[in-house]
């Protein structure tokens, strides 16, 4: 987080490490990397107080490319490392980068538990709906029926909805954006500024193994037709000229055309990021049963909740306040002591 340090102002490029970036040419990861460099500059992150932690996957190579401290750990387990780092030093700004395989296949349990604890970390889940690094097997977010090397007749599993999972895991900040989306910077910045676990799902194009998976959201036409940019306190409008909207009828959401259907903006749903149940509904948009609805980008949910690392520190402090700092000799002579003469 930004701190006024009186130090020289850092620019985006100052956050780039000296390592050659090794993603495939054209990979969506490049765009995300650039945006993260920029956001770090925006919040003036202190490189020495910033740590990037990742699991394993193409996306998880991320820490090598940021000139901060970094830990490229093992597959799916980044949340454990993050938690340990924050317990050891709650002052650090920690970012975690993971993929749909790393974070939702092998590692979903750790992610869920870190979210419910609300460890103070910014989580970027690069969702390319494929296993990139292992060369193209389907992932837990791949659409049913996907043909890959491991599913030549089509995959059978029903895909996970990352935002829904994060919400059910009691996350205190849930957002969605895309590698090429024009508002990705804003979303990352909000995530950076949120205290607690900020979960950001980033749709990311893997041009080698799942090219174009998000064209219907990131191409110009697709974005106009399908993306709903959420703004707190604002009515939910979308479309090229913002003349389509979402309203609730009998508890069920539906799309209306402001011009044709004679619905006023005031009748639309207004985005309230602190409503968890509503966020769960938003997370269903464009999924089975809600195919007609647009895909919400931006902050779906945000709530203030004490952070795990903060609470741990507070307990330590309370213990010290109550009984004074520990004295080793007192401890060493505790218990049922007797003397032999």
């Amino acid at each position: 987080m930004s701190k006024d340090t009186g130090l020289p102002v850092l620019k985006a490029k100052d956050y780039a490490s000296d390592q050659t970036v090794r993603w495939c040419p054209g990979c969506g990861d490049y765009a995300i990397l650039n945006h993260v460099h920029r956001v770090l500059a925006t919040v003036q992150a202190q490189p020495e107080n910033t740590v990037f932690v990742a699991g394993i996957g193409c996306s998880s190579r991320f820490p090598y490319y940021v000139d901060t401290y970094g830990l490229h750990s093992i597959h799916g387990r980044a949340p454990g490392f993050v938690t340990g780092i924050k317990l050891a030093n709650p002052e650090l700004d920690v970012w975690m980068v993971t993929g749909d395989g790393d974070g939702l296949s092998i590692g979903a349990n750790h992610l869920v538990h870190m979210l419910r604890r609300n460890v103070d970390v910014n989580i970027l889940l690069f969702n390319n709906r494929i296993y990139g690094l292992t060369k193209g097997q389907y992932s837990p977010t791949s659409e049913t029926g996907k043909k890959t090397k491991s599913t030549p007749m089509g995959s059978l599993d029903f895909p996970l909805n990352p935002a829904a999972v994060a919400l059910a895991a009691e996350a205190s900040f849930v957002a969605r954006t895309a590698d090429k989306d024009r508002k990705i910077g804003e979303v990352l910045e909000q995530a950076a500024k949120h205290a607690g676990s900020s979960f950001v799902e980033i749709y990311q194009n893997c041009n080698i193994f799942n090219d174009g998976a998000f064209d219907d959201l990131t191409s110009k036409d697709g974005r106009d037709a399908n993306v709903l940019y959420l703004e707190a306190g604002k009515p939910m409008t979308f479309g090229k000229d913002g003349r389509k909207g979402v309203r609730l009828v009998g508890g069920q959401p539906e799309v209306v055309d402001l011009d044709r259907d004679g619905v006023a903006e005031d009748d639309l749903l207004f985005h309230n990021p602190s409503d968890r149940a509503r966020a769960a509904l938003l997370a269903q948009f464009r999924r089975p049963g809600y195919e007609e609805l647009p895909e919400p980008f931006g902050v779906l949910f945000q709530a203030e909740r004490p952070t795990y690392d903060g609470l741990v520190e507070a307990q330590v402090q309370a213990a010290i306040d109550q009984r004074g700092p520990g004295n080793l000799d007192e401890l060493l002579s505790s218990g049922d002591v007797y003397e032999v003469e």
Partner: protein
Amino acid sequence: MSHAPAVDSSAPSELEQAVIRFAGDSGDGMQLAGGHFTDTSAAFGNDVATLPDFPAEIRAPAGTVAGVSGFQVQFASNDIHTAGDRVDALIAMNPAALKAHLADVEHGGLVVVNTSEFTKPNFKKAEIDPSQNPLDDPELSQNYKLIAVPISELNAEATKGLGLNPRDAGRCKNMFALGLAYWLFERPIDHTAERIENYFGVKKKRPDIAQANNRALRAGYDFGETAELFPLRRRVPPAKIAPGKYRKITGNEALAMGLIAAGQLSGRKVIYCSYPITPASDILHYLAPQKRFGVRTFQAEDEIAAVCAAIGAGFAGQLGVTGTSGPGLALKGEAIGLGVITELPLVVVNVQRGGPSTGLPTKTEQSDLLQAMYGRNGDCPTVVIAPKSPGDCFHAAIEACTIALQRRVPVLLLSDGYLANGSEPWRLVESKDLAPIEVDQLGPPDNGEVFEPYSRDDKGVRPWAVPGTPGRMHRVGGLEKQDGTGNVSYDPENHQRMTELRAEKVAKIADDLPPIEIEGPDSGDLLLLGWGGTYGSLRAASEAARADGLSVAHVHLRHLNPMPNDLGDVLKRFKQVLIPELNTGQLRMLIRSTYLVDAHGFNKVQGKPFHVSELRAKIGEMLKQGSAS
């Protein structure tokens, strides 16, 4: 162990040592009774050693053999090292307890039975033919000194009139049994009485319960007197113990205390990350309230998260520790490998239990040594050390933390169920007797300094620069790293070099180890080589063998990897080497391979410690054969 004396006078017969075992239902409070007996004996001046034995269920059905809980204490006027092989006095609170434990009682030993519970329904629960009351078995009173006492009834009597409900009153019967045990062994009841008062009366604000317990205790004591059991009375005089302050300590307590001490000595927060598992959970329970010492405990969602968090804590500059037992260690292997390649401090406590798989979760075993050595992918050497007694867990924990912090390497600390729950008198340590743990963590670089996170000092150790330090930002991870820079490297020769450097770093730790301590002659006919929790039994056996005039020495390894540099020499000085282990021969395998010594094994996997007698027999056998060949 002692043999029951044949005297019949009213002066108690004097014994050098005695073994008493309290056995009853899980709900009968046997662990508590045993604990009190131990404390009183220790305070009385005996040397003591204990062996609790829990069932795997929380509370198995009352009255069944599976539900029997036992607690054994050996107390002595001499220096003892184990809780004893055979039992001199058994307190059996119900038929199941008698059935389960009688076979362990020395012929002629005391057997106290709670006759109130010897009923047909209870026989059924214990799977005893209801028509054959075991108390009617003539062999019982022929072979043992039977003391039949309707404990439940007498206890009910003693606790009457205090307004307690029958359940709470019934719960005092362990104190009745304890009182009787005190009388039998001439121990005072005050120590226990006082603690009951403090706990129930003061702390729990239940003076009624305190009073009931104390009445039962006294009633039991008085029963001995009244029933004129004098001929059965025994006396174990105080031992000649080095003067000083003592407390009774279990391995888990000592280990936890050692971790706290290491945190204080190194000026680092202890971040203890663990997922509950028997028999390691008590370390977590002990540490959780120690926040005043800067200890943070993290109950993780599983063992993998726990070890990862501990590594994360090490990465961030503190003392990351994870604790578990066998199956949990199996889950941590991959992450420990990351600890090895990133060369970060990490302590992994493994309290071994009976395996394989879920195995015998509440019983002891030493069968995770090879898992500790090799349970990860790749050539992945790391440090393995093991404490030898409950109290030694304190020092072993400090040493594990010291090595981890100073050498930037995962250290596996192998305790076991016996050490964890067993207790011994422990002479208090003062902080001034403990050396500070110096750790060279880097500050900001000098102007123009080139920082290479994978450069090395003369011990082969890389620098430790932690997040928060300006000017030393760098990235580590599980891919092979370039010597020096630490950048990812797929270079073939570099991988060979790094593999060697990692191994050398661990091997070099042996250069700073003290010379091996040999108990007994420096060379001779037989070396008894052991490790970990079997120290007491092996020491007792080797002392006994020497007392028998045999040329037997004992070496107990604390450092399993790397092993001490002088071990090869020591091994060669003995004609035969015997390696007793509570596994099928894991240290033996390492020793044979490394030193090409035809070491023999003596291997027991029964969820319990060696009997000294078994070891003595084996030693005798080997020396006979050895001299015959």
